[in-house]
């Protein structure tokens, strides 16, 4: 099975806590902090589909595939 090293960073200043990334991630990677900020809870499940980046209305998510074997 392909193993990817993925880095997800959340720009807390831009994030408006709308919840779309958490709700619509197909792999359920995100959980929510108390104020709604997305937390990367299950990075292992991430398939780097990139939808969270595109769904975010505020350019607050950066997803990088660092390595792929």
């Amino acid at each position: 099975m392909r193993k990817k090293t993925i880095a997800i960073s959340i720009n807390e200043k831009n994030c408006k806590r709308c919840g779309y990334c958490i709700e619509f991630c197909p792999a359920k990677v995100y959980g929510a902090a108390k104020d709604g900020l997305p937390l990367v809870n299950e990075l292992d499940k991430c398939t780097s589909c990139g939808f969270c980046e595109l769904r975010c209305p505020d350019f607050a998510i950066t997803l990088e595939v660092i390595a792929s074997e």
Partner: protein
Amino acid sequence: MTYKYTDYLKTEAQPYMWCPGCGDGIVVRALAEALAELQLPPHQVVIATGIGCWGKADDYFATHAFHGTHGRALAFATGIKIGNPELHVIVLMGDGDAVTIGGNHFIHSARRNIDLTAVVVNNYNYGMTGGQYSATSPLTARTTTSPRGVPEPGFDVCALAETSGANFVARTTAYHVLQIKKYIMQAIQKKGFSLVEVMSPCPTHFGRRNFAGGPLAMMKYLKERAVPKSRFDKMTDQEKIDHIATGIFVDKERPDFLKVYRELNPINQLADQGGGNK
């Protein structure tokens, strides 16, 4: 030079002014990605907007930009395009700007088939001014100026464009992020009047007043109720009220305004004589 989507945006202006959960930022992303995939030089692109939340997008692009009066973006854009036909002119309008106050310019721009790309973000109300109803608000919807329900049905924006003669007409929603980018790319590349309508959540106003279940409710509605047109066409009238037809409705090659104009009015050798602004 390879352009990235960030080359088209003023990242220093982020976070943008839109409410949490507003679809406008999603469309900005899709538009910037489309421009990058087409590798259009930013100085050959003009973003022309009108009034409203989506109309604020002119402040957020690093391309040329224009912000005009309510409903008239297409008319300004017509001049911008004819003034320099090399430009890619992309007109951003909400449902108020495009088909309420702007209705007349909308149908004439499509009829005239002026080579513009219109990206209409339709959130079913006037969000910026506090959630009053617009010409796309559905019958009986609750808005701040229809506390007992909107007494008029809303326009089918795509049907208006299609009937008026637009070369490219497509609809999707703020949920369908890949489709937004794909349709915008096709619209930009298409000569003549191209429309991409994006149904979008307004969590603060229309969404809050018409969908139970919190800020995510309207986006969920768009996700669940969007169906391809072929499926929509087979639905009953009642089902149609509760669903949104998406897809490409028109994709044709009628010659655009300037092409026809030049065929009828060929430039003769006087063209390099005097005047002008070179």
